[in-house]
Structures are given as C-alpha cells and as structure tokens.
C-alpha cells in the first residue's frame, strides 16, 4: 500500500489483548486518517450515554497517509475520544515526530477500549506490540516518563506519547504530550487516557512509507517547499513562530486579557517575540519535515523561574500571560515548563485559572476558598503554586481541575465569569474591533466547543481561491476585509471548517501549509496526495472528504444533545459595545443571521441538523435514513 501503512491496532485494555487489522478501504478513501478516521470510529462505535471517564469510552490515536513522507510539515497526529468536558467530541492535534515514527513502525491508527486493571503503556517496535507494566512511570512527569521508558527499553530513538500527573488524575484541563512539549487534546482526552490506566505509547519504527510515484512526488514536494520558503513571511515566521500574534492581536484589540474582559493588555511589550528572543531563546527547533522550524529551545537562568524547555508560542503565552494579567515573561516560561511536565493544557488550564481570578476580582473567592492563594491579576507566584495543586487535585486545585464550567457549579454566583461555549473555554482571541466575525462564528459552531482553530485560520491562503469562486472576487474580498460585517461569513466559515477537517485528517500543519506562510491550494495538496497514495483525487474531492468528516463530527455533537441554541457565544461577546478604543462583540440579531447563513451553506436545517440530501450527497446514505430519526 502507498501512503498509508495499511494496518491499525485495536487494543483491549481490560483483557490485555491486542488485535492487528488491515485499514479498511472505506476508512482510507472516505475519511483519510487522523481526525477523520478517529471521528468515524467514535461515531460508529461509541454507545450513547456512556461515562466519558468510564471504560466504555474509546480513545483513538490517528495519523495520515502523508505522515512519514517528505510532504512539508507532515508531522501532526490526532487524538480523539468522547469529550470529558461536554459529552460531545474531544480531539487534539499536535506536532513533533511521533506520527512519523508510528508510520515507520507500520500503523495508521490505534483504538483503545476498556480499562487496564493496572497502569500500563503500549510498546511498539515495528511488528512487535505489547502492553507493559507502567508502575515505574506512573506518577511521573512527562520528562521523566520519556527518559525512564527510553532507559527501560534501551531505545534512545524511542518516540513517546504520554500523559503527565494531570491526565493520571483525570484532570479535565490536561493534555496529551509527545516530544515532551508537543501537546494536543481539547476536551479532556488526556483525562480519558488516564481513566484507562494508559500512561504512554512508546514507539520505535524502522520501516518507511511507500510512495506511489516517488519521482513525481519528490518533484512536487520540491515545488511546495519552494512556495513555502518564497513567502514574504517565511523568515518572520521562522524567527518569531506564532508569538508574533501577541503584538498583532494587541493592535487588533483582540489580545485576550483578564479572562476576556478586554482585548488590550498594557504589558504586551514584555511578551513579544522580540522580548523572548532577546532574553531567552537558545536555538530553533522544528517538527519533522518542516521547512520553517518555528519553535525554539529556551532557557530562563533566573533561579526563581529557572527552566530549560522548548516551544514557547502564542498558545502558551496568552493563557498564562495577558489572560491572567501577567506580564512577567520568565514566570510565564516557568509556568509553561510546569504545565508541560504535569501534562496540563496551557489553554484550558490557563483559561480556567483566569475564570477563578475574575471570581476573585468580583469578591466571589477569598483566601479561605483558595487555600491562602491571592488570585489578584498578575500574581504569577500564586499561579505557580496553584498549577501543581490542579494537576494533583489538591484543595482548591481540585475545584478547578475539571474546567471552568464545572468549577462554576461549586462557586456560588460565578456564572457571570464563565467564557465558554458548550462547556469549553474560549481560547486565543477576544472579539475586538479588528477581529473578523468569522472567528466568533467559529467559536459558536466548532465541533469540539469553543475553538480558535476552526474559524478562519486556513482561509486566507489555502481557501481564498475557493472563497472567490463561491462569493465572487468582490464578495470574497468584502467578507475578508470587512471583519465586522456578517456578509459572506457563513461560506467563509464553512469552507474553513472543511479545510481544517482535511488538514487534521491528512495531519499536515495548518500554519506551515495552510496559513499565510505556505498557502498551498487544495489542488496542490491533492496533487501531492495523489502522487503519494496513488489514489487520484482533486482538490474538490478532498474538500468533500473534509465536509463529510465535519458532518460526522456534527452528528456526534448532535447526539450529545447540542442544537442551535447551543451554537452561541458567551454573553459579553454577544452584545455590541462601543468603547473608546473601538467596537467590541457582535449584535445578537446579526449573529443569528450569520448562523442561519452558515447552516444554509452547510446544508443543515434550522436547528443545525444535516439534511438528508446533504448526507446522501456526502456518501452517507445510511446516516441520512437512520440518524435523522434519532436526532
């Protein structure tokens, strides 16, 4: 088989049994791999009403046909399960080189069932696959877990996916880690891994990925690398990584500040890429096959905040910085190191701490409630103490360990401080004067709850031609360049969501390939995909696949009971306000119109349920008949 390894693993943890199976043709051709394959398994195999942290949940790890090839930035992996936060879908996508190693070992997907009677890890060494006792690493952080497993298996080239103490303790604001600092898992999938007593997956692969037309593929790869490296933003992104967004979002009035109470942060200049680079960056670090290498190793020498780690980025800086009113960069880097080692999600955990700090600001929490921690904005030293308490569920840390929405049930009057959609904290952006409404619509409708990565990210380059074809050149330009008008936003978002599903199923990097920096069009991606796999597909075919995957995920969300009323925004986003620094939020009626526009483009009914003809068009006739009855 070309592209795909052609084999999956089903691991029955309760029984300690491992079954190897061929990857089905339906899965390859209709769902590709990664997020698509995982979501399909969850929709088909999960029983309704099960406990997300019980043995009946299913945990999937998926990679795609381009992982392990020379396709640029093809380093990503996807983990998925039923959400432990909102009962819908939880998934996460991370980088590094775990996915490459898994493909070299010969596997496209791993599906874990049941619960092991004792902590275990899965060891894969090419054809050899076994569950091993994890007692030596249970209770250990991600750094030690990596080191101890490499030592135990005498395998320095081992690649490890693991959880930290947070996941072991079924903390919902946790993440799954690979390469120690590469994280993924919105919605508590790390807690699901912990609930299964599965500490890690340790992989060594010595094979390779077969390419259908190697000569033509490598020519096309060279062209793609050339396009990425010719971008006028290539050097900037290589130098700054996603940290450039601190300055960018502050200027747009969209830097999430003090639990999304503002979009400007007075201390932003201390947190920029320039500040980081000048004081703490050591050298570049890249994921496999990436021509950009946007990450850095970094070191803080100040003994109070001392840390040596890697991959400081926007997604670690905003939630531990402006969102908490903290402008102390060494402290933020130190906190990132703590989160990575304990396996805490900087987004969900930082956002939940921000919720608690707003509770403090409003007098809803006192020292008595917080075990003596002063949660005033900017108090980094208190948060440094709080993070391990969350991971170990100690005292007040236990109150926050399940995310802000569950915490709010324990803090009287705190609903006003919640900034969530479907139980998931709004991450990354404030809906300020310069932010495109499409981002807000993305938060409201994304299939895993509030999601900053499924609301316009891929569109500016990868999707721009399709957007012009659908809305006309002027219409496309208008929807992009009039950020605070609802015109065309339904199409804008719908296209982006199809592309995001495609990218996460091929497991290629949205920033490097799809954002401003790579800008590969769907047709260019399809050419590379076809040459690698031998399955001839056009850009439109791949976008239809992305749409099919998105509809499967939408049905998982519907099965959890979510409807139109849940496709909404936090109250402070859902009102338009004129501030001295420009308008913020969106008018509710305008938002409703935008939502209807989006449903219509997606082929869904008024309540957001896919119409039968939509499912038939997407090659899902069985679901069209049965699912709608159930929905």
């Amino acid at each position, binding site marked *: 088989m070309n592209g795909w390894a052609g084999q999956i693993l089903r691991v029955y943890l309760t029984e300690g049994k491992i079954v190897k199976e061929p990857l089905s043709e339906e899965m390859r051709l209709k769902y590709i791999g990664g997020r698509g394959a995982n979501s399909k398994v969850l929709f088909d195999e999960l029983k309704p009403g099960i406990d997300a942290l019980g043995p009946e949940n299913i945990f999937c790890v998926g990679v795609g046909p381009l992982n392990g090839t020379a396709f640029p930035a093809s380093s990503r992996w996807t983990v998925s399960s039923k959400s432990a936060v909102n009962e819908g879908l939880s998934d996460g996508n991370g980088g590094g080189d775990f996915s490459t190693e898994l493909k070299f070992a010969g596997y496209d997907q791993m599906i874990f069932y049941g619960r092991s009677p004792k902590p275990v890890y899965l060891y894969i060494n090419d054809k050899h696959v076994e569950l091993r006792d994890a007692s030596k690493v249970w209770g250990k952080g991600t750094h030690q877990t990596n080191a101890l497993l490499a030592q135990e298996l005498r395998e320095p080239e081992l690649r490890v996916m693991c959880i930290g103490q947070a996941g072991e303790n079924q903390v919902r604001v946790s993440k799954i880690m690979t390469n120690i600092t590469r994280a993924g898992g919105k919605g508590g999938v790390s807690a699901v891994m912990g609930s299964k007593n599965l500490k890690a997956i340790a992989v060594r692969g010595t094979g390779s990925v077969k390419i259908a037309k190697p000569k033509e593929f490598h020519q096309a790869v060279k062209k793609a690398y050339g396009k990425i490296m*010719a971008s*006028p*933003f290539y*050097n*900037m992104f290589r*130098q700054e990584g*996603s940290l*450039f*967004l601190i*300055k*960018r*979002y502050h*200027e*747009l009035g969209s830097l999430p500040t003090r639990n999304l109470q503002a979009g400007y942060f007075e201390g932003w200049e201390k947190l920029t890429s320039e500040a980081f680079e000048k004081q703490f960056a050591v050298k570049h670090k890249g994921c496999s096959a990436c021509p950009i290498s946007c990450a850095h190793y970094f070191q803080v020498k100040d003994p109070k905040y001392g840390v040596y780690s890697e991959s400081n980025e*926007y*997604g670690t800086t*905003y939630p531990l910085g402006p969102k908490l009113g903290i402008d102390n960069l060494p402290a933020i880097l130190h906190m990132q190191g703590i989160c990575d080692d304990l396996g805490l999600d900087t987004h969900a955990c930082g956002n939940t701490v921000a919720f608690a700090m707003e509770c403090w600001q409003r007098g809803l929490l006192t020292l008595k409630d917080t075990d003596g921690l002063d949660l005033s904005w900017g108090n980094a030293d208190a948060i440094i103490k709080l993070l391990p308490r969350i991971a170990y569920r100690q005292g007040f840390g236990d109150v926050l360990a399940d995310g802000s929405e569950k915490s709010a049930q324990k803090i009287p009057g705190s609903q006003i401080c919640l900034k969530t959609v479907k139980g998931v904290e709004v*991450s*990354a*952006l404030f809906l300020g004067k*310069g*932010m*495109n409404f*499409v*981002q807000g619509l993305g938060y409201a409708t994304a299939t895993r709850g509030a999601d*900053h*990565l499924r*609301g*316009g*990210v891929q*569109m*500016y*380059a990868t999707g*721009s031609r399709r957007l012009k074809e659908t809305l006309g050149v*002027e219409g496309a*330009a*208008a929807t*992009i*360049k*009039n*950020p605070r008008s609802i015109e065309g936003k339904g199409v804008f978002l719908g296209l982006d969501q199809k592309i995001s599903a495609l990218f996460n199923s091929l497991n290629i990097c*949205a*920033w490097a390939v799809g*954002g*401003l920096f790579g800008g590969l069009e769907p047709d260019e991606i399809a050419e590379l995909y076809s040459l690698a796999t031998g399955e001839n597909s056009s850009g439109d075919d791949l976008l239809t696949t992305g749409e099919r995957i998105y509809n499967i995920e939408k049905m998982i969300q519907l099965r959890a009971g979510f409807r139109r009323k849940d496709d909404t925004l936090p109250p402070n986003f859902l009102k338009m306000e004129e501030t001295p620094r420009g308008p913020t939020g969106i008018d509710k009626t305008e938002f409703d119109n935008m939502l209807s526009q989006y449903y219509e483009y997606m082929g869904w009914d008024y309540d957001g349920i896919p119409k039968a003809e939509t499912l038939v068009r997407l090659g899902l006739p069985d679901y069209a008949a049965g699912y709608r009855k159930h929905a």
Partner: protein
Amino acid sequence: MSIKLILDPILDHLTGNTREMEVEGATIGECLNAAVSRFPSARPGFFQPGGELIDYLNVLLNGKSAFPDELNKKVKDGDEIRIVLIVGGG
C-alpha cells in the same frame, strides 16, 4: 505632500524594522509604491505578482477601511495609511 504610512508589525521585517514612514503619492497605490522604492524587499509583502494588493492585507485610510479598490483611493496631505494583516487562530 506627505502621507504617514504605518505597517502591520508582521511586515516590518521587510522594511528593516521600519514601521512608520513618510511617503508621497496621490493614491494609496502610489504611496505603497513609494515605500517599495525605498524598501524593494517589501514588494512581495504588499503586491501580488500582477501588481494587485495581496488578498490578506487590509488598508485603513485615516482609521477606516479603504476597501474596495484600495490602491486607487485618493489621499491628501496629512492622511494616515495603515496596512493591517488579516489573520486568525493562535
């Protein structure tokens, strides 16, 4: 005639970290070309190969969007042109 041109922070690597400059021109397009004359490396950051404005740039004239037909919009002495990159995610 002097127009103030302010670049998005993401573009200043193309102009040797110069974010603000005084330029001359009767239209936004002429002002951007004046900046390119001074900083030739900025051309691919502003214009597509055919000379059109790059899709994901927004041009604000005195704080208001100059869309549509941005490059042909007239400017006058003392105006401020701000180039903003459109971006999302994180």
